[in-house]
């Protein structure tokens, strides 16, 4: 649905984005991760048809970002990281303004405005002036604006920045709802916990270069020399479980604490199944057996080797 091919953007001597390529499939939620100044917003603005590339190409739903920006605008909903609102306009007027700007006929506008207000829980603010809304409400209103023409692709630059914890959670719930509606979403953030819950794939960018892209699980596998297995037992037979695990050639080291055993493991998914079978066959009372996931923060720090900021 979204394709970035060798995108480079230079400002004089400074290279903001260097030969960036990635693609996002239909219905995916792609988290664009990177520290401040990494090139996230530059890439996003390029995809939103606001920035001409030094070289490279971008395609959204088959339309070229540089050759056919109008076609791209029809299929994207763009929410910038920092945006303002028009003074002297009410919430419904603001949405009507953008609905007209997206050439939606009047007959459909009333229904659409009502629907997006309801989706974003702004119905009670319909007649309020937009410049009097709180930051969280303005973020929601901007998201409502990006949805008025029902675009299949959403490009959201730091949608939760500057929000309080409650508004942040509400924004997360909204994005999950949009995901259920089948939208393809490119969302950027430097707050990693925001993205971990609902992104199907991520791209890590730093100093204008893409360091890794793919599903979080794939990236974990690529960057980790060892996977970590965690076995929880219903009773305290940790010694027996530890002995069985130590004997397996796919296990490098084992540590036991209380009712749980943690093991460093260099095998594949089949080896994991075999190990679980051995434990069960030996009568070890396994309550849970799973690979301990890396948090997105850990993935990020490992990929960027801690040289960010």
């Amino acid at each position, binding site marked *: 649905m979204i394709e970035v091919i060798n995108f480079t953007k230079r400002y004089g001597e400074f290279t903001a984005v260097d030969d960036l390529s990635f693609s996002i499939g239909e219905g995916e939620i792609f988290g664009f991760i990177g520290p401040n100044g990494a090139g996230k917003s530059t890439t996003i603005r390029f995809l939103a048809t*606001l920035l001409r590339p030094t070289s490279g190409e971008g395609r959204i739903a088959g339309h070229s970002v540089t050759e056919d920006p109008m076609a791209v605008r029809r299929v994207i909903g763009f929410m910038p990281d*920092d*945006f303002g609102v028009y003074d002297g306009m009410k919430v419904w007027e603001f949405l009507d303004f*953008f609905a*007209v700007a997206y050439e939606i006929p009047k007959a459909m506008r*009333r229904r659409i405005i009502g629907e997006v207000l309801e989706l974003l829980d702004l119905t009670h603010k319909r007649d309020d002036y937009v410049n009097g809304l709180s930051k969280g409400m303005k973020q929601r209103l901007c998201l409502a604006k990006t949805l008025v023409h029902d675009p299949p692709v959403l490009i959201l630059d730091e949608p939760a920045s500057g929000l309080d914890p409650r508004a942040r959670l509400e924004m997360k719930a909204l994005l999950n709802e949009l995901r259920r509606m089948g939208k393809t979403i490119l969302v950027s953030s430097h707050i990693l916990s925001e993205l971990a819950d609902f992104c199907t794939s991520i791209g890590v960018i730093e100093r204008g270069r893409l360091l890794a892209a793919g599903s979080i699980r794939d990236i974990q596998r690529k960057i980790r020399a060892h996977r970590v297995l965690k076995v929880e037992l219903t009773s305290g037979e940790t010694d027996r479980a530890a002995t069985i695990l130590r004997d397996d050639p796919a296990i490098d080291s084992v540590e036991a604490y209380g009712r749980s055993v943690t093991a460093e493991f260099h095998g594949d998914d089949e080896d994991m199944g075999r190990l679980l079978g051995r434990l069960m066959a030996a009568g070890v009372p396994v309550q849970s057996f799973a690979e301990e996931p890396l948090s997105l923060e850990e993935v990020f720090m490992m990929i960027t080797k801690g040289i960010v900021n």
Partner: protein
Amino acid sequence: MWMRENPVLNRELLTTLRSPRSFVLQFVYVAALGALVYFYWPAGVDDGSRMVGPGVAKRLYDIFFLGQFCLVALLAPTFAAGSITGEKERKTYEMLLVSPLRPHTILIGKLLSSLSYLVILILSSLPLMILCYLLGGLLLSEIARSYIVLVLAAGTFGLLSVACSSGFGRTSSALVVSYLVVLPLAAICVALTRADDPSTRDFASVAILPPVCLMIWTVVGIVVNNRLLRPSDVGGQGGGVVDEEEEMKYAIGVVIDRDAFPDRLFAPAKRNDLMPDGTNPVLDKELRSEIFSQGTLMLRVVIQVSMLLSIPLMAGLLFLRSDLAAYYVAYVLTFNLLVGPVFSAGSITQERERQTLALLLTTLLTPGRIVLAKLTAAMRVSTVLTFLLTEQILLAYIMLPELRGRPWTLIVFLLIIAATCLTTSSVGLMCSALSRRTSTAMVLSYLTLLILFVLPLGVRWYLQGVSEEYDLSPGRLALITVTSPYAAATSVPMHAYRPGDAWGGDRTDFVTPPPAAFPGGWSVPVWLVFLVACPVLAAAFTGVAWIAFLWRWWKAGDGA
């Protein structure tokens, strides 16, 4: 503390004076004044036809004094009207207010920093003025008096502009109200200090002007100080919402009613329902929502002050001396010169400053449609406001037989005013597309308009002094002024003045100013050339605005 350790003053001086532009501008200014003196300098004439005498020195002195006085009246508001609104627009106002700086320290810092560059410019002309003194015919006291008047005027105009800046939320509003306050004062000041009788001049300059200025400084200083101490225009969310109905309840004087004529011409009522299909949403937004987004105060002040000023001018220039009707038109043109850029110079920069441009540019609206909507909205508001002042001209043409007999002159006057409205709006739009900030766009717009409208008159006046030596016929001189609506208005043939003949009746004695003489022997009235050239110029300015808008958006990538 007030001056040497004033952080506001130090910061502003650092940013202003360390830029290479300041030095370049000063160099250009002194070089231009130097050129004026050089071409008038009698030593350069071999045949001795131009004598060293009081005429030359007096003309140069007039150019220096009047030119610099105009510069002070026009630039003092430009520098000072954005001093506090700039802090509000950059969202640094509250940080400044909560600092330990006392309000008067902030005020003095803002005032001195705004005016320091202007005063440096004025003083840099002093050596050239002394050079003119060597020609004879001038008294040193005359020169000293002029510089005292200039510095007093700079201080007063600057302080009034800072006061306007503290009263409004946007630089554009503060600037136009500053001009409306400053320019009438400047006219009075020039009339007093340039009276023919030397003793009246000296008395006005030395005995009247300083105490009046001191009084203005004290009163305005106290008002601004109190406003900075207890600001009413800061606050969190919701603070920016203006309740029009509530505001109108407490409005003094003019009340704007969106449903009534003629107010609905420039501010149509807000919609109760969705926009009809095919509406240009940008145009609709500009006219129905944005026009009063900062309140109606600015527009009410503009309408009231312009109407008040028009009453004595109407009496003097239309009814007592109807042969001077063109000068009343010149007042209407000046009003448009001031107001036109206010509604257009911020049209694109404000989208950028408010960070709404990215939202707008990712819709299906084309840049051409956006630019056209901005021009139409700005032109509609400024044209309606300007034409409110033409009621008096219509009245004069209905009541006075000597005017009624020549209705075509009325049509020409109205066309000149309409063409000027088109030009001022298109220049403002172009400058808005070329600039990053509204304040820069405003200054650039006024500068462009002064070059188009006023500079040709100054050049003609200057060249009249050397017209014989350089063989410049009145027609050639008139050709220089074809971009000026003032020249166009005064080129319309009017009846000759006969003392004691205020209500002239049918007249046959008309004064026809020299037409513009084109190379090849063509002679065309200045007003006709102006009316043909203006739409072409306006189209060119709008074209530049469109290209600049596209260029900034794509090429630089900073359009949002």
